[in-house]
């Protein structure tokens, strides 16, 4: 049981992340008004995920956390994926008709 050494993340990183997040917001709003067809939702979700990742890693200190915390994060994302993908697997393959 290793008790992690507490890393204090300073204002400089926070300000950088804040700016990155604001930039991301601007970017995603701008991108949403351009018709990229198939790519629109993917870009929107990719930018959202990048932003979420920044918040996770820096604001929420995951980057400086124990493996256990990282495991919890990965586990949550994994189970979320299972819920979404296996449910959608049913919905998508329903349209394939019978055997």
């Amino acid at each position, binding site marked *: 049981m290793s008790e992690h050494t507490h890393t204090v993340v300073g204002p400089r990183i926070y300000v950088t992340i804040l700016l990155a997040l604001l930039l991301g917001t601007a970017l995603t709003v701008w991108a949403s008004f351009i018709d990229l067809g198939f790519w629109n939702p993917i870009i929107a979700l990719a930018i959202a995920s990048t932003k979420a990742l920044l918040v996770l890693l820096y604001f929420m200190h995951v980057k400086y956390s124990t493996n256990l915390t990282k495991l919890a994060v990965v586990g949550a994302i994994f189970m979320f994926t299972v819920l979404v993908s296996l449910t959608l697997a049913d919905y998508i393959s329903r*349209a394939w*008709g*019978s*055997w």
Partner: protein
Amino acid sequence: MDHTSPILWQFLVKWMTNFPLFPTEASTIAPNVDALLIFMTLVSLIGLVAVFVLIVTFSILYNKKRHPVAIQMEGSTVLEATWTLIPLALFMVMFVWGSIIYFRIFTPPTNALNIYVVGKQWIWKSEYAGGQHEINSLHVPTGRAVQLTLISQDVFHSFSIPAFRVKREVIPGRYTTVWFEATKPGTYRLFCTQYCGKDHSHMDGEVVVQTPEEYRKWLANSTSGTSLAQNGERLFASLSCNACHNARPDARGPNLPRVFGSKLTLTSGEKIIADDAYLRQSILNPSQHTIQGYAPIMPTYQGQISEEGVIDLIEYIKNLDSDYRIQQTQSVTDLPPDNSGKTGPSPSATGVKEPVSKGSVKP
């Protein structure tokens, strides 16, 4: 002897000696399902016996009196592998076998005789192509694949015929299908097995299996005078469907004869087979099912037609000319040939190959 026998004797004779332990097999699929069931039961028994024998033998050999000091051991990779792999292999056999049966039960043959069943709290209504309909009862012939197209008007129900080993959830808003071929004439139980509210336990009925001749007789005697297709034709006219679906060159809606069973391309580019489910959806949610080349202008009939009405319309559309129809009619005719069921707008269904307009509605 029962007029003198004591109550207990009656109990033993009349009651205890005469109760079923295994359901009758009355469909072609039933022996297949039972074979798997018996296989699984045997495997379970072997497993159970193995566990039982292990527990009993070890309990006798190694009880404290006989074996006062336990011998410690860690485990055995070989044994672990044995009881991982053997069950796994058996389960895989069951999985494959079970899946094959599953797909057999839920994949109707193309020439199946179609019967519609509408479930509502708390009755079953079966509708036959010839316009016969009955409540909490289903008549089917032997030796003929029968497909049930099921839909619920309210909540989930489940249509179960234990003697046939088939069961299918009856869902609101969507057709589900199941098929079987009955083998033994007789009367069998029919249950709603999905809890559906107050009188769930009274939503049962009977399935009457008859020989083809008897069945033909029954059909002839129970006809209501108009077939589903004829009802559908009337509904088609009263809803003014023919304003658009009229086979004219400038028609705003697709031409309906031959549409059933054909492969359509939707506006989205998706290819789809026009089956019952598709027809139902395109009547109730037309904009999602628009065929390529047509504008999504069809209004929805959701809330305007009952499920029975939709069935009538579908049956009408099916009875307009189509390749599929020809196939089916040929095999249907040997069943109810004298029945008025085929007097819809396509009286010439037998073997007529020429397409379009023949059976379409005159404007």
